[in-house]
């Protein structure tokens, strides 16, 4: 026996030990008297008392207490687990002990039953024999074998594949959650689209309803009842075939749910919903503000197109001329090079990733976001059909007000009916007829403007700014009815369909621009008409001052010794006299025109009632007509200068004993005779000394020509501003940027606040990233993209080194092709205008104006819900 901890207790311990051993060996092991083992209890008490006293003396008990405190938790869990482990086995033990008796009972019962129903047993026996004889057993076995084969061959692999697939997407769950969804603490069912297993899009939270009911209602379409437009359109555009129940919100964990469902916790104080899903290891919560389709807001991945496609490239290659060709060639070469580089880069990436379902879903999700608002409203409207939310019924005063408004509505409806039946059709018919007459006249005019003598020749609209302006206006007038019809048809569809929004912006932009144009034009026109005499005076003065007097003085200056430069007197006098004669003749022409000028100005002023762009275009044309002499001087002097330069160059080759080989387009050496060389050298010297005289004349006219081109460019820029300025788009950008989407943007939010708010540490929150998705409004650069393009084109055409070279060598600098330069003005118009018949059918296909509904007599149900009886399905009973 071991010693006790305290020596003073040794004796007591020894007594207890002997007693215990005696009891253990003699009684316990032999199975006698298991119940009264109290004989050593008094001894044990004595011993423990002694020991406690000893421990207290030495201060060990405190240590012990502390240790016990510490271990309490451990013990508790250990004990608990033990309890769990052994818990179920105890009743099993008991069952075992009852076993023989129950078997006996069962045996007696079976025996009794068999004797009582002996005939049944014999029947069964006969049946078994019969079955055996007819091969039922073998057939059943075969069937069983086939079934198990099928199970092993098909179901097991499929199940394995499914689990593999399930594991493939790394447990990342993506939840699109509308940030402006109403937040309440009621229990709810989360409803939305399931794009793939772990990619869900939340549409709405239906409150206080049973998930089972919601699922059933979604299946039979109760929740989409009373939709104003066809429901199939929703599924078609959102790319899914059904709305699903996605999960539960604010529901305690004790309520069991499908493992693929999410559990969301939302509340008024919580901006970001806490989302968990048993299947997901990490969660992306993407919050977005729903665009309001009623305000025509929407989002899109690509910037909204303010112009109508890029169809004008086709036009450009229609009229190739030498200058443009060089430009185009260079462009084409650059593009080719780039394409080759891109091909090389393609070869660089070795393997192609197959995009997962989640990655492919983005375009669909954008549509779903655009639909989110309207669908949520529809679902919430129909929630009352599946769950009952108590509402109070109308009070007496409210009913009085309601009946009064009903009476007023009746009156209005009657008046509206009178109007639609008797007055409206006449107005409409007259308007359509007027429109068609206008369309036919426009067609005739357009034909004239577009008429070309031969396919390659310039049409009237290519030459004259006025003709072009008239053409643009006529085309706009032809296009408006078509646009209006498409916009009216929009009303027949859901508001969330966003395809016609750019059309809407274009339509109202061009309407507004024309209205603006007319308003400015009226102001300008009335001014010009009132002061026609003065304006004509000014213009004729300007004309004589700049196009006659200035030219004459500069030519006579050049005929002397300009700036101390000693020119060839004879040649200078000859050229100067030549030009002066022509200028004299021209000025006499202008003198005869002068009395006409006030009438022309009056006509221009009158034309400006059709818009300020008309007088500008007319002035531009007038400018080109009245400076036609400068243009011809420029061409003539340029030609002379160019010839002289060419001759000089070839004589210079001769001078060096070389010549230009035309066949091979290169410089060859050549043996000239002495007389050839002599004559050539003399001619070279002569021409070289005459060159400066020709050059100054040429430069004089070239500069004048450039000034005129610049002036015309200013006029044309004004025209394009009046015809194409994105006024409506700018206004929208300021008023409601959501209507001009320019792409999307993501913002990573800190998840700290969310983690702290979940206080329960045992609740394993998967790693969550909270992302805000926002729509970027279209930037101003994209709005004025067309202008930038035009500026770029002008710069490339007129400010390139090649133009300078052309100027220096006296080659003709062609003006930029009108069509090419003003593709901007056509960017709002379709490439092909709709024909007269097309317009007739389109205008007649417009839907009739909606007749106002008779005010609906709404039965007030017992629970205060109103179900309008005359809408849709005709079922007035609520599900509940």
């Amino acid at each position, binding site marked *: 026996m071991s010693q006790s901890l305290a020596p003073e207790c040794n004796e007591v311990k020894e007594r207890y030990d002997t007693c215990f051993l005696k009891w253990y060996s003699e009684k316990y092991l032999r199975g006698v008297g298991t119940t009264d083992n109290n004989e050593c209890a008094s001894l044990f008490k004595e011993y423990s008392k002694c020991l406690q006293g000893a421990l207290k003396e030495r201060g060990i008990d405190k240590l012990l207490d502390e240790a016990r405190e510490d271990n309490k938790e451990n013990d508790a869990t250990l004990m608990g687990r033990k309890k769990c482990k052994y818990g179920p086995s105890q009743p099993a033990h008991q069952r075992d002990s009852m076993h023989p008796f129950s078997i006996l009972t069962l045996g007696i019962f079976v025996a009794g039953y068999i004797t009582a129903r002996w005939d049944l047993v014999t029947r069964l026996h006969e049946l078994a024999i019969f079955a055996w004889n007819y091969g039922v057993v073998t057939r059943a076995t075969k069937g069983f074998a086939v079934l198990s084969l099928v199970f092993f061959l098909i179901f097991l692999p499929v199940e394995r594949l499914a689990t593999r697939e399930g594991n493939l997407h790394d447990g990342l769950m993506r939840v699109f959650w509308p940030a402006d969804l109403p937040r309440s603490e009621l229990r709810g069912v989360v409803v939305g689209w399931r794009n793939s297993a772990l990619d869900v899009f939340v549409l709405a939270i239906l409150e206080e309803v049973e998930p089972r009911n919601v699922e059933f209602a979604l299946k039979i379409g109760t929740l989409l009842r009373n939709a104003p437009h066809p429901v199939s359109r929703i599924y078609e555009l959102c790319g899914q075939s059904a709305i699903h129940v996605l999960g539960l919100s604010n529901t305690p964990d004790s309520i069991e749910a499908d493992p693929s469902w999410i559990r969301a916790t939302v509340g008024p104080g919580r901006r970001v919903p806490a989302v968990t899903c048993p299947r997901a290891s990490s969660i*992306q919560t993407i919050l977005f503000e729903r665009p309001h389709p009623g305000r025509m807001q929407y989002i899109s991945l690509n910037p909204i197109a303010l112009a109508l496609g890029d169809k004008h490239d086709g036009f450009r290659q229609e009229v190739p001329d030498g200058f443009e060709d060089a430009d185009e060639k260079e462009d084409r070469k650059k593009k080719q090079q780039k394409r080759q580089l891109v091909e090389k880069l393609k070869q660089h990436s070795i393997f192609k990733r197959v995009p997962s379902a989640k990655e492919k879903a983005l375009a669909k999700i954008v549509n779903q976001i655009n639909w989110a608002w309207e669908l949520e409203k529809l679902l919430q409207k129909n929630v009352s059909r599946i769950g009952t939310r108590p509402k109070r019924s109308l009070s007496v005063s409210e009913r009085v007000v309601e009946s009064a408004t009903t009476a007023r509505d009746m009156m209005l409806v009657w008046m509206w009916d009178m109007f639609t039946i008797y007055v409206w059709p006449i107005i409409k018919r007259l308007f359509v007829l007027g429109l068609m007459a206008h369309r036919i006249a426009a067609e005739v005019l357009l034909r004239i403007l577009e008429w070309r003598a031969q396919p390659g020749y310039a049409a009237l609209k290519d030459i004259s700014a006025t003709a072009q302006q008239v053409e643009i206006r006529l085309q706009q007038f032809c296009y408006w009815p078509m646009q209006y019809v498409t916009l009216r048809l929009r009303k027949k569809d859901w508001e969330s369909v966003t395809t016609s929004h750019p059309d809407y912006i274009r339509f109202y932009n061009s309407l507004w621009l024309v209205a603006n144009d007319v308003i400015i034009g009226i102001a300008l026109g009335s001014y010009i008409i009132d002061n026609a005499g003065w304006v004509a005076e000014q213009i004729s003065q300007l004309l004589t001052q700049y196009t006659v007097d200035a030219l004459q003085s500069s030519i006579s200056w050049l005929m002397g010794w300009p700036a101390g430069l000693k020119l060839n007197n004879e040649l200078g006098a000859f050229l100067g006299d030549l030009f002066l004669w022509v200028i004299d003749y021209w000025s006499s022409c202008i003198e005869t025109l002068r009395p006409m000028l006030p009438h022309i100005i009056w006509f221009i002023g009158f034309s400006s009632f059709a818009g300020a762009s008309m007088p500008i275009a007319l002035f531009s044309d007038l400018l080109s007509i009245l400076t036609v002499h400068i243009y011809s001087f420029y061409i003539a002097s340029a030609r002379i200068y160019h010839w002289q330069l060419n001759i000089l160059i070839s004589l210079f080759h001769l001078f060096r004993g070389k010549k230009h080989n035309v066949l091979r387009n290169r410089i060859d050496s050549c043996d000239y005779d002495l007389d050839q060389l002599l004559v050539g050298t003399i001619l070279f010297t002569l021409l070289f000394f005459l060159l400066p005289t020709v050059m100054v004349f040429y430069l004089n006219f070239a500069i004048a020509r450039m000034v005129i081109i610049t002036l015309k460019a200013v006029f044309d820029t004004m025209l394009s501003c009046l015809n194409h300025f994105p006024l409506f788009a700018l206004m929208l950008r300021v008023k409601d940027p959501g209507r001009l989407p320019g792409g999307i943007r993501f913002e990573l939010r800190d998840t700290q606040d969310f983690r702290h708010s979940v206080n329960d540490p045992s609740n394993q929150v998967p790693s*969550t990233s909270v992302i805000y998705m926002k729509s970027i409004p279209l930037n101003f650069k994209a709005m004025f993209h067309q202008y930038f393009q035009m500026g770029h084109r002008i710069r490339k055409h007129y400010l390139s080194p090649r133009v300078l070279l052309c100027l220096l060598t006296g080659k003709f600098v062609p003006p930029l092709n009108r069509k090419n330069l003003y593709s901007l003005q056509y960017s709002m118009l379709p490439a092909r205008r709709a024909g007269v018949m097309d317009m007739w059918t389109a205008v007649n296909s417009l839907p009739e104006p909606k007749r106002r509904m008779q005010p609906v007599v709404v039965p007030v149900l017992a629970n205060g819900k109103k179900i309008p009886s005359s809408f849709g399905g005709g079922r007035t009973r609520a599900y509940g």
Partner: protein
Amino acid sequence: MLTTAPHLYIRRPSPTTAEFTVTTCPPPSLPLRLLQLTLLLLRLITISLALLALHARFGHDLPLSTASLPPFLANLLQPILSSAPATLLTRLAAQDATPDWLVAGTALGAVYGALAFRPHTTESVLVLRGLGIQTSTTSGGGGWGVQTRFIPTEKIRDVLINEAFRGFGVRYYLVVVVEGEEDVVVLFPGLLPRRRIVEAVWRGVRGCLWEGGEEGKG
């Protein structure tokens, strides 16, 4: 003092989402705070001076009197308005010799500069698995807001590091090759950080963007 060499911050709330930010803004410290405070003061002074000049030139009808203001504001403003630079500026702006457009232009330019000046350049790349890559830039100098561009994963052909000569040095830069576009998209185009940072970002992007990113590196 206000800027440092570009350095990298990584924010990664979950393994599938990461934001890599390269910025020239130094880590917060007391001197930096003080400098930022001075900068703010400078801005305020510039704006108020510009407004004062505008008032001196165009606001003859509205006399600048401190009487109508609450007393503590008046006490604050009075010494400033009567200080030497303020009176000098007022006199300069009110001179008839300087044309109107010059005064107005300078004042408005100063206000714009004071509001839009930003000492740091920050460029970041946000990688979201299943969605795509978003680049965003807030450039230093002047300018408003953040320019962002989002590239969906579906369109990303590859993300790679390229090298280029710039002056006499070689720069390594990150490139996103976008399907159906002629130009590649350069990440951190303004700062062009060092190779160490570029490599770290590249690894992060590869690991984050695609499922099983590290194995599928190739």
